[in-house]
């Protein structure tokens, strides 16, 4: 009897440990980034770090550590990718749930899921050999390694997330809404645009946020196709270097314990905070959408 009780407790404890391990890991990562990153401010002023556009830690003369251009670059590819992925993603989700017959659904859904399984390095490769030359040709540029290229590829990568979560949201809209709309004489298109999508909007917003979360942290693809020029971007045709690419490029060679080393951690901290806030927004919106459904 006693043994069973002990076993019960042990199992209980074991599952508690697995449950909190994620929290411990998350907190550990954040503290590691923060404590290493903060040491940089001994040598670099916070103002220079946040508002200088020149990131050149391995300068010939005086090194500089301004992250503004790379934050702008990251924001720019995210905006670009969402301009492409949001209409495409919502459109696909609406088609799958509202228009497509069951057979089409059966074929389409697994294909979209497979899209999520393509390794990012393969997508980057596609960007170099196919999308880049195409962009150069279409826009009459000399090189296709630029922000647009990164945006297109990130759009492809965030599409599966956006489609599958929007699809769930649209499917969750109660049948009564649609029936009421039809009863009032609205056709399918009007019902979809005026009733179903607005009713599912919080779920759709959450899907967009998670899509952004997917795109923000993406490293390999943008590293391969955006040209990695650490200049302040002026247009989508400029070569850019995102925060993730900078970390990936420089962490391999940076001497331990230098300002440059800590600066990379500081960039990581900012990136972490950016992606954390996007995820929190997604979480809040989803919570609201759940409570509304009941």
């Amino acid at each position, binding site marked *: 009897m006693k043994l069973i009780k002990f076993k019960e407790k042990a199992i209980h404890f074991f599952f508690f440990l697995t449950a909190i391990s994620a929290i411990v890991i998350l907190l550990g990562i954040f503290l590691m980034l923060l404590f290493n990153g903060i040491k940089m401010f001994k040598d670099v002023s916070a103002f220079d770090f946040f508002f200088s556009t*020149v990131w*050149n*830690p*391995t*300068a*010939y*003369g005086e090194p500089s550590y301004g992250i503004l*251009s790379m934050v702008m670059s990251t924001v720019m590819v995210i905006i670009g990718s969402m301009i492409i992925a949001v209409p495409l993603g919502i459109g696909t989700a609406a088609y799958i749930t509202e228009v497509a017959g069951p057979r089409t659904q059966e074929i389409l859904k697994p294909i979209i899921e497979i899209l999520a399984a393509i390794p990012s390095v393969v997508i980057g490769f596609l960007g*170099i050999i196919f999308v*880049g*030359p195409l962009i*150069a040709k279409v826009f009459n540029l*000399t*090189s*296709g*390694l630029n922000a647009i290229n990164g945006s297109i590829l990130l759009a492809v990568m965030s599409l599966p997330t956006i489609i599958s979560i929007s699809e769930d949201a649209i499917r969750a809209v109660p049948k009564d809404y649609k029936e009421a709309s039809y009863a009032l004489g609205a056709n399918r298109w009007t019902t979809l645009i005026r009733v179903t999508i607005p009713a599912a909007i919080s779920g759709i917003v959450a899907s967009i946020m998670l899509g952004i979360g997917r795109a923000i942290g993406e490293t390999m693809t943008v*590293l*391969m196709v955006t*040209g*990695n*020029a*650490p*200049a*302040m971007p002026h247009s989508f045709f*400029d*070569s850019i*270097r995102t925060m993730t690419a900078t970390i990936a*490029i*420089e962490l*391999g*060679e940076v*001497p331990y314990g230098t300002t440059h080393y800590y600066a990379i951690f500081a960039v990581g901290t900012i990136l972490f905070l950016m992606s954390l806030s996007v995820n929190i927004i997604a979480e809040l919106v989803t919570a609201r959408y759940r409570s509304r459904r009941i």
Partner: protein
Amino acid sequence: MPYNFRLIISGAIFFVMLTTMISCSKKEVDKHSIQIKGSDTEVNLVQRLSEVYMEKLPDVSIAITGGGSGTGIAALINRQTDIANSSRPMKNAEIEQAKAKGVEPVPIMFALDGLAIITHESLPVKSLNLDEVASIFKGEITNWSKVGGPDMETSVYGRQSNSGTFVYFRDTVLKGDYAPSVRRMNGTAQIVEAVRKDKAAIGYVGIGYVVNEEGNIISDINVLNLASDANTTGVSPLESENVKSGKYPLSRPLFQYTNGIPTGKILEFVQFELSDEGQKLIEKEGYYPITSRHMEHNRSLGIIK
């Protein structure tokens, strides 16, 4: 609880197998394998040398990875590699850092590179001097018309800061900073690929990267003739004499660093690279054999007789 018991037994067996496998493979590594890491300029060259060497001595295995000279040197300092390939000499700070960790870096020069400045074949500019090249990479010249080309924005390709060539080029040619608009490419091969497709491109690559396996220049690119200043005429790095004599302004030795004077398998491999056979292979790969002056340096280290 027979189920749990079985799980524990199989777990234990798996663990024992795993540890034996790891310890065995570790021994294998210690005995025969040489780890080489670093310069992207050198990676294909050393790969070729090691392939030929391993064919002769099948019990030796050599593993080569690129990643840039800075990466290789960092690995040498952290004792993660036997040989660090580097296309630039180690910086003083790096040598101090190595010594603080008890690592004694020894520079071996094994090949000569004439760092090539390449452009797209269709560009009419065929010769530049060092100042003009520096101005283009520093962003002071942004249009080809300034150096006798068509009215077209320059499209500049370089390497990342972990590249030895990035540092060499900055310190010997620019003597200043790269323009932020210079694209930082991941590897030398990527620069070649980008320049082939870009009509306004200019980039720098190790001379071994401009020739293909048959020894011909890769299609769609042009290797610029380079002059040290405005008063001299440009010479091509494709002529071995220009590079060996130093008439080509970007002639540079390629280094391999070891921790202390190498011994055993590592020494034998380095001696192979410096042998007549090794030097011939280097020439076949598009680079140039080292001069007697560099050979003398290696001799003074006691690596060769």
